[in-house]
């Protein structure tokens, strides 16, 4: 599904494409999914789970929520850069198929960030929302992918780190972490 959408967009993808690419029979397809949209939703969920796992792995073993956010963001961007198909579907097709899906993946990713800071006793500050920060980060990622430059995603790390930390720790700390992210070498993507 992901490969088909990246190649010919969701609208251009047929069940025939899916069964041929997936090497399964039509009968098997309909045992697993009710229709094309159902299959798309399942594919998007898988992509987000993969992204969430990458963020968590990147953040593992860090001393502070700021460092965890910074390393998680860098690992996430590496994954998105390494898998342009996944990124294209998450940032482009999803909006076309159903803009409310963006809400769904913000609900899957943002609580993890809030937990990370919540455990350290830092709730989101007044007048800033992690959910909005997520939307802004997505906009930046979309900007690079839509321009056909997925390989440049890791260079967004300072911006994404700033956006993710700002709602909790404020401008000055977010800027400090963004500077650190800029100076850090790339993070390996877990297989």
């Amino acid at each position, binding site marked *: 599904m992901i490969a088909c959408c990246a190649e010919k*967009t969701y*609208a251009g993808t047929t069940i025939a494409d899916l069964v041929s690419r997936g090497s399964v029979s039509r009968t098997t397809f309909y045992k697993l999914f009710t229709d094309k949209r159902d299959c798309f939703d399942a594919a998007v969920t898988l992509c987000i789970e993969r992204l969430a796992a990458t963020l968590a792995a990147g953040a593992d073993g860090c001393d502070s929520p700021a460092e965890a956010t910074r390393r998680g963001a860098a690992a996430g961007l590496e994954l998105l850069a390494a898998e342009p198909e996944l990124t294209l579907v998450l940032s*482009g*097709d999803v*909006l*076309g*198929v159903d*803009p*409310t899906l*963006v809400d769904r993946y913000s609900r899957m990713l943002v609580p993890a960030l809030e937990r990370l800071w919540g455990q350290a006793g830092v709730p989101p500050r007044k*007048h*800033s929302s992690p*959910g*909005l920060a997520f*939307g*802004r980060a*997505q*906009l*930046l990622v*979309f*900007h690079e992918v*839509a*321009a056909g430059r997925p390989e440049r995603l890791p260079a967004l790390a*300072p*911006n994404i780190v*700033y*956006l993710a930390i*700002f709602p909790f720790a*404020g*401008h*000055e700390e977010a*800027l400090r972490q*963004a*500077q650190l992210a*800029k100076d850090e070498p790339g993070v390996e993507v877990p297989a």
Partner: protein
Amino acid sequence: VTRPTASIGALPRGRHGLPREEVIRSQRERLLAAAARVCAERGYDGTTVARILAEAGVGRESFYELFEDRRACVLEAHQVLLDNLIELVRVAYAGPGEWVDRCRATIAALLEWFAADPLSGRFLLVSLAAIGPEFHERFEAGFDRFVAVIDSGLDPELPASELLPATSLAVGAAISRVYGEVAAGRGAELPTLVPSLTYEVLVPFLGEDAAKAAAFAETPHAGRLPGEVRGG
């Protein structure tokens, strides 16, 4: 013959003595407005030429004299709306006062525009994503034009940040906030967000304290500035 469902300046039938250019201009405007409305209500997939014609009260032949197809009409409607909004932002930003006052007035004007016509807002930001890569490109170009407008009027006293592009962060803050509210169907309440969005927009330029002071200060300038807010 389809009757116009809305009379957005529909011309009288029969002999009305108007010059042909004016008739064409009126038809074009009605078709663009209709395309935006139908698309916002039904999504791009549900937008057929027949529905645009019914909404605009224009005949099929006139439509095809003006536009190649549904896609061309919808994309042009989008372009016209985006141009209007960018012009509104440019005028508000060029208004009187200190730079922070001009920023606040610009944000107020932007939010008023989306609140005054939530359907147009929905069309501008949400409905066309289904078109795919071409919409992505237009979205990109629109984003860059907003950044250019804001950059062209920056206060020269502002500290320059080499690390982060403050203007992109500020424009991104405004677009994501508006997008979120419009997509959730809360466009009409956007003007209540002037203070918090002003804070979000100013903070990358000014830092915490100055941004808070400028956004939430209970001065006569805070919030909407009468006469500087333009809707629709």
